[in-house]
């Protein structure tokens, strides 16, 4: 008590006994007041510390910085010797971990990075800590702790400790440990409450860190995906370059075929004809027949080369898509056929206004082949009938078809139809080189569609095709 005040009181009371009594009474009154003031001061400091912690949580700083600053503040406020954040190794079952952050009195050693193994912790205590248990020990040697526990604590010179859980979500991430090393210490309820509050706020920081880690992982994953896409793209670019080179080679090859293979044929045909014209008398009927066969074979070969060139051109030429009236194309082809062979009465039925989106020249080749085939394979049919139209597949895709009532084919051989040079009929029956349908298939595939055939021997044939799903009606 203030000595000056006591002297004044003594002067006022001439009676020593009365003074003693007065002094007793005052001490009795003042002591609790003092305690209250102390408490209030602690409350104020505590609020300040909490405020600092919360403020820091709002700032975009890393967990290490938050831990370090919080440890320093808590240690200062509590007058403790060490405040440390202990972290369990993930997947260690809470048996192993280490201090990842601390603030420690210079008189005592650092606990950072010292591995701690407590084989009974995970089994016995983790569950309780996970539910918010607080360990509050005034003196580790008088608290009934197990030997191994005491041994671990003494490793860090701990005499009294206060331990609260650090939770990340619902998972026990680690422990917030307050150590008193120089002497035992009775922890006050307000102090315990304060440390719990700090731990709760650190849990927020841990949660943020977790979110941030997830976000970073996602970013990394995205970057990797992007990298993979880029690599894939580069591979694709390379493939395109190679493909272009191959295409160029193919073009050069076709060009040379177009020129060089046909030139000798012209000579063979031309001079055979010259022989027939100039030396007719020297040739008997057999000789003349042979020359005619030579000419016919030469011309077939010429046609074959032309068809092969068409097939290769179909593969390499660019698609120029536009709106195409298939019905009109079909009509023109049929009219042309009828004009070429006016002696054949063929009934045509063409569904009007079938518009598609595609390459007009290539689609012309498709219909040319299909309708010419229909024409060819209905030869000898007394009531030949050729139909062009469209139906709808189950999924709504239009299916275009060319149908005839000609000789048809055995479905056993359906797979051979679209392969180049495959023929189902003898040359004498129906001429052809087996390239037409292969060409049709390539064109349809280039348009993203499918082509197939159905038929029966002597029951006619139907060739159907689809195109990529961009068809529209104008």
């Amino acid at each position, binding site marked *: 008590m203030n000595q000056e005040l006591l002297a004044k009181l003594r002067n006022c009371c001439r009676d020593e006994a009365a003074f003693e009594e007065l002094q007793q009474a005052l001490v009795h009154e003042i002591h609790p007041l003092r305690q209250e003031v102390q408490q209030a001061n602690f409350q104020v400091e505590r609020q300040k510390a909490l405020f600092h912690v919360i403020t820091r949580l709002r700032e975009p700083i890393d967990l290490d910085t938050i831990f370090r600053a919080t440890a320093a503040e808590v240690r200062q406020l509590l007058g403790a010797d060490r405040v440390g954040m202990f972290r369990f190794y993930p997947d260690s079952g809470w048996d192993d971990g280490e201090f990842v952050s601390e603030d420690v009195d210079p008189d005592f050693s650092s606990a950072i990075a010292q591995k701690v193994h407590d084989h009974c912790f995970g089994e016995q205590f983790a569950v309780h800590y996970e539910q918010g248990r607080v360990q509050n020990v005034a003196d580790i040697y008088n608290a009934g702790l197990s030997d191994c526990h005491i041994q671990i604590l003494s490793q860090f010179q701990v005499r009294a400790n206060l331990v609260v859980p650090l939770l990340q979500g619902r998972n026990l991430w680690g422990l917030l440990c307050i150590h008193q090393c120089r002497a035992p210490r009775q922890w006050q309820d307000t102090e315990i409450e304060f440390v719990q509050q700090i731990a709760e706020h650190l849990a927020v920081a841990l949660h943020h860190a977790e979110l941030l880690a997830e976000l970073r992982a996602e970013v990394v994953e995205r970057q990797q995906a992007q990298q993979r896409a880029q690599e894939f793209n580069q591979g694709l670019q390379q493939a395109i370059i190679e493909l272009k080179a191959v295409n160029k080679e193919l073009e050069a090859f076709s060009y040379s075929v*177009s*020129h060089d293979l046909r*030139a000798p*044929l*012209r000579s063979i*045909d*031309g001079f055979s*004809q*010259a022989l027939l014209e100039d030396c007719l008398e020297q040739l008997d009927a057999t000789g003349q027949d042979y020359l005619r066969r030579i000419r016919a074979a030469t011309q077939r070969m010429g046609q074959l080369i032309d068809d092969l060139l068409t097939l290769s051109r179909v593969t390499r030429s660019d698609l120029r898509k536009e709106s195409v009236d298939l019905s009109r194309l079909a009509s023109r082809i049929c009219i042309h056929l009828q004009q070429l062979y006016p002696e054949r009465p063929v009934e045509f039925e063409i569904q009007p206004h079938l518009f598609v989106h595609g390459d007009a020249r290539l689609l012309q080749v498709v219909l040319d082949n299909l309708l010419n085939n229909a024409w060819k394979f209905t030869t000898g049919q007394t009531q030949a009938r050729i139909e062009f139209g469209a139906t709808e597949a189950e999924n709504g895709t239009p299916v275009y078809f060319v149908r005839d009532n000609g000789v048809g084919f055995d479905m056993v051989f359906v797979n051979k139809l679209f392969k180049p040079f495959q023929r189902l009929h003898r040359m004498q029956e129906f001429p052809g080189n087996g390239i037409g349908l292969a060409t049709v298939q390539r064109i349809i595939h280039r348009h993203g569609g499918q082509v197939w055939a159905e038929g029966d021997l002597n029951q006619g044939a139907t060739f159907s095709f689809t195109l990529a799903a961009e068809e529209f009606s104008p």
Partner: protein
Amino acid sequence: MNGSAQDRVILLVEDNPDDQALAIRALKRHHIGNEIVIAHDGVEALDYLYGTGAYADRDIKIKPTVVLLDLKLPRIDGLEVLRRIREHDLTKLLPVVVLTTSSEEQDLLKSYSLGCNSYIRKPVDFLQFSEAIRQLGMYWLLMNEPPPV
């Protein structure tokens, strides 16, 4: 004027001797008796047109009525010959008929871009070829009015 139809010269630029023979045969078949000058490659063709090389003494004022030009030729190819013909003042109006084996789109496109007057693909069938030559002769030698000198 170039004189009468018979005096008109046809310049056939063709390296394949078989094709030369067949072209000449086809012309004869249809009684086209005009003089046929044969150039075996692009260089010879240009020499003839501009009086250089083997044709240094030739009067270049006498121009062929029509040039039948193959595209695939040794030394200077047909497209290059065509390009030079169109570039040169002396020959820029000269009728040039490309007579070739190729029906490749790129050849057609380049030939027309360079200003050929006609493009004919030689058919394998000699009778068709002969017919093409007949029509060609009829058109360019008899019907067509050549450009003024």
